[in-house]
């Protein structure tokens, strides 16, 4: 276990370093992206630009700037170039939204994926299976920003069935309203993943149902339900759960950019997208690192979960 933790930490450091250098490099090559000039605002004067360069360290060598930025990221002192707000504070602001979105969407993905995958696999090549397969392919093929935009308008603004967008926290509107506002965006994200998961699960479950141990379980006189759930599904779920964990991590780390944008959720993903488009490096750096950490940690959790689900695996 200790070896596992050390390995994971080492890989996290490596990933964080690489990702941060990548981000830093990309944004440093951009022409016309002089942050000092941007911060100087609408009427820049040389005196002021110079003062900004000095105070913010833009006159230092790139390596120093990089080191400084990483240091600030980790001690929470990172400041946005476009409006000088504390990046970490702003991320903390957006995180509940992104977390909520992640929560519901990952729930939908999981439940939807398992339900459809099981329905499909239990009656292979039946009408239900074919229908589900068709739905899955369609789900995988629908652009989320498109379906999201249409949902937001037609179900939201026009029909008034769901809120057209925005976020209501539990403390503001209670659990119901909170959920209600997240329903459409969570579903919009889930379509794709339900499509993917149901197909992955279908394949694995079919394999599992053909496995010898399932035959054993049947021969033992267990109920059909127990055979499917306890024996087949338990094994077949492992690959799907792995995928799911990683996707959750990515959504958490700002991956739901399109959905957050279309549904006006203004979480971490939308913040990242805005910052990236306006070339505001500090938030991009912080959120990318956050995302990378989420992925690495989630990967570790998946591995642990994996070892739990499949005792043959050693950490």
């Amino acid at each position, binding site marked *: 276990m200790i070896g596992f933790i050390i390995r994971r930490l080492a890989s996290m450091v490596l990933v964080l370093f690489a990702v941060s250098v990548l981000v830093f490099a990309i944004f440093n090559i951009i022409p016309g992206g002089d942050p000092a000039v941007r911060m100087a605002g609408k009427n820049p004067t040389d005196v002021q630009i110079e003062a900004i360069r000095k105070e913010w360290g833009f006159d230092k060598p790139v390596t120093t700037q990089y080191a400084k930025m990483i240091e600030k990221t980790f001690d929470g002192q990172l400041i946005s170039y476009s409006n000088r707000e504390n990046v970490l504070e702003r991320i903390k602001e957006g995180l509940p939204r992104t977390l909520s979105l992640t929560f519901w969407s990952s729930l939908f993905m999981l439940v939807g994926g398992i339900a459809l995958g099981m329905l499909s696999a239990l009656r292979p090549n039946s009408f239900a299976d074919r229908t589900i397969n068709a739905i899955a392919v369609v789900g995988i093929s629908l652009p989320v920003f498109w379906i999201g935009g249409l949902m937001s308008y037609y179900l939201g603004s026009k029909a008034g069935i769901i809120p057209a967008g925005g976020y209501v926290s539990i403390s503001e509107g209670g659990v119901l309203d909170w959920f209600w506002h997240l329903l459409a965006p969570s579903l919009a994200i889930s379509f794709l993943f339900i499509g993917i998961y149901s197909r992955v699960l279908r394949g694995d479950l079919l394999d599992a149902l053909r496995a010898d141990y399932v035959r054993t379980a049947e021969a033992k006189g267990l109920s059909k339900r127990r055979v499917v759930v306890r024996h087949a599904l338990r094994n077949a779920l492992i690959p799907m759960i792995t995928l799911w964990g990683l996707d959750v991590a990515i959504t958490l780390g700002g991956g739901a950019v399109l959905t957050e944008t279309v549904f006006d959720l203004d979480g971490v993903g939308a913040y990242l997208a805005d910052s990236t488009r306006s070339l505001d490096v500090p938030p991009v750096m912080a959120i990318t690192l956050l*995302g990378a950490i989420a992925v690495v940690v989630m990967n570790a959790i998946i591995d642990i979960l*994996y070892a739990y689900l499949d005792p043959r*695996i050693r950490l």
Partner: protein
Amino acid sequence: MAEATQPAGVPASGTPAPAATANVPDPVAAGLWRASWRAIKSSWAGRLSLLTLVLIVASSLAAPLWANHVADSGPLTNHLTDQIRLNGELTDVVSFEGIPIGPTGQKRFFLGADANGRDIMVRLLYGGRNSLQISLVATTITLLLGTLFGLIAGFFRGWVDSVISRGLDILQSTPIILLGIALGVATALGGINLGIVKIPGDSLFIPALIIGVIQTVYVARPLRGITLSLRERPFVEAARSQGATNMRIIRREILPNLGTSLLVLAPIIFAQTVSYEAALSFLGAGVQPPNPSWGTLISDGLDVLVSAPHLTIIPGAVLAAMVLSLNLLGDVVREAIDPRGMVAAAQKDEH
């Protein structure tokens, strides 16, 4: 992005490996294409999606014909103050409040106009052209680079493999849509300048290159796994014992056997590329205005969803149809030449 970038059934990433090692499809050097073709021809889904693909590609190719001979307007031509005769009445192409005309069903402005009074039908056709061009180039880049890295990592193993695999890990730890946005925004501003090669910022090659490179991981990983087990096969051992060089083994023994995997992956990667391009362009980091692409058309359309919903619905539907057809085609081909899902297994079994 987590969203819209996963190929059908392709796992998000380096999953902790199920214990099994990657299986390898049987080396069937010839006949892959024929088998695929037969499968496509004989299945309902295959025929339908092929027809859709052909229709979309053909209409995109025919864009200049429609522009010059039917709509009488280029994809970038503004008609802000023009009027056309609709049901015998002169009608503004763009109203005073800036609301563009809806579908006319006539030659001109068949699908209506956008906010600049440009003919949407023409832009849709040209947009398809741009999207397809980019996706085609990007897919080619992805397959080439993916094969290269997968092959090298899987064949040479050791530190080469470690370096490449860690690199792929890192690529997968970042939501790739964000990487795409960052690169897209950065390069759109200044273009790419590599000394000898200069690509202007509005070139279609830039998004193609970005998408192509970023998606490499989805090909490199499975091919690495397959190469890893191919190199242990008897025929490779045999070649080695006869003193064949690494290059020769790769060229003669390994590469031909990657054919199945590539053919299975290609449509899925293509589908993914089309979605990815659309997403990037939607966020303004792909095709640069005023050039149309399906993504920018949807983005423009959403601004006027209330008054002109077709501007969102139509490009999105074409995009979805394209991706759907590619995914279905991918399914059909996979079932035909990789019925035991070995390529998919290799995608899952990583590390």
